[in-house]
């Protein structure tokens, strides 16, 4: 027990700075994932074949490659191609684009979960395509996608630790813990605190999702 408190007291500034970087990384990645993911989902259900094909290629590429491979391509690959990208940009951008492929698939399934009859009813009431989407389909689709999006967000928070362990070497929470382990050899208490840090984020994400679920729940 004493060992645990000593570990956090001795290494607080380092662990806190790692935690802060992890928070920033997952926040930026989450925004990118939602924005790009929605755009790709719209491409996937677009009426034009070319647009659908673009969406499909995006999903297959970003979902089909290991995150580590994407990270190295986005950092080392681009740098070798002459793009002076930094690890601080490449990390969250790659994690966001990777997660976006999953977001797109979740949104697409949510879209198809809304019965065809809903759309037909809306159109026959005189709403146009856009209005049907905004007022009838999306609100219902949103409700069904909250739980899978919450799982995805939790996975994304944990995936963020891959960035620091890769060639990008950013000093996120897990990395800071590892650096301090290297200096002291005291692995268990430091990794315990790193675990606590990740749990605050993953549990936090789950709690927010639960609230959203309750708010948009339909009592039947």
């Amino acid at each position, binding site marked *: 027990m004493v060992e645990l408190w000593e570990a956090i007291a001795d290494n607080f500034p380092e662990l806190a700075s790692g935690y802060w970087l992890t928070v920033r990384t997952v926040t930026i990645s989450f925004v990118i994932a939602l924005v790009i993911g929605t755009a790709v989902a719209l491409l996937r259900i677009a009426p034009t074949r070319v647009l659908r094909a673009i969406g499909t290629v995006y999903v297959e590429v970003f979902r089909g490659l290991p995150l580590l491979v994407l990270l190295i391509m986005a950092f080392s690959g681009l740098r070798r191609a002459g793009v002076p990208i930094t690890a601080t940009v490449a990390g969250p951008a790659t994690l966001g684009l990777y997660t976006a492929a999953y977001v797109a698939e979740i949104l697409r399934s949510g879209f198809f979960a809304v019965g065809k009859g809903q759309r037909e009813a809306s159109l026959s009431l005189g709403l146009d395509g856009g209005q049907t989407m905004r007022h009838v389909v999306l609100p219902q689709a949103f409700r069904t996608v909250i739980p899978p999006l919450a799982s995805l967000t939790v996975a994304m928070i944990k995936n963020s630790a891959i960035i620091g*362990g890769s*060639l990008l*070497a950013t000093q996120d929470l897990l990395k800071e813990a590892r*650096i301090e382990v290297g200096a*002291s*050899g005291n692995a268990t208490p430091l990794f315990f605190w790193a675990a606590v840090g990740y749990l605050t984020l993953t549990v936090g994400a789950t709690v927010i999702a639960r609230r959203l679920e309750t708010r948009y729940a339909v009592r039947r």
Partner: protein
Amino acid sequence: MSKSTKWRWLAAMLATLAVLVVAACGDDEDGGGGGGGASADVEQFPADTTMGRIQEAGSIKVGVKYDVPPFGFQNPQTDEIEGFDVDLARAVADALGVELDPIEAISDNRIPFLMDGTADLILSTMTINTERDAEIDFSDPYFVARGRILVPGDSDIQGIDDLGGQKVCTAVGSTYEETLKEQAPDAELVLIDEYSGCLTRLQEGSVDAISTDDVILTGMIIQDDTLELVGDELTTEPYGAGIKDGDKEFQEFVNGVFEEYKSDPRWAESYEKWVGQYTGQEQEPTDLSLQEALEISG
């Protein structure tokens, strides 16, 4: 499945099992007699010592680097793990009359590996220092490396004083984290898992310099001769083998093996093979004691 087929399957499985058991026993005998002439006169140790336990197991698990030529690395031609540290590990295995079982130990997992028994011994370019000495025990130093800086040939960096504001790469968990924080406080550290990652980043220009032991940097120059060592020696890094904390008997045993290894031609042969032929430098085996090593590196 009919009844007779079932029996046939059972018989076949029992036969296979019997063959495996016989084969496993056969291996054991091979292991005991393995290592050629050296093992014939090997001392058998009591089962309650680390040496006895290793002899019982038939192999010694030694944590070495897999990506640090010329000390511990995977030979791309043969896939074997080779290097100066690996030669020394083999000497310890021979002295016990057991097989060498190398396992990959990177800088930030090797101390936990010793503590939890994943490795019996660590020989992975590990500098003796007091921080680590509090967690594990060290053998006497078997090699002395010097801290240097590696830069691309066209770099403006000529020494430690030029590192301010520059990105300097070293391995997570290595002594250079502290060294650089003290000697070049304005440098921006990039801490990577493996030194091979530092080399990649230096080549693609996302770090400006690498700082670590000269032998590791020599290994990088062997791979890419446009790179060069600059500046004075930053540090003296006596390498020691890592031993589980408090295991005095094993520590004494390892020291005995090292003593013999340093005094006969094996140390010099291994040095020439892995370091000397590339650097053109000669070096005598170190006679530093563990106490002196701890005083040097603090």
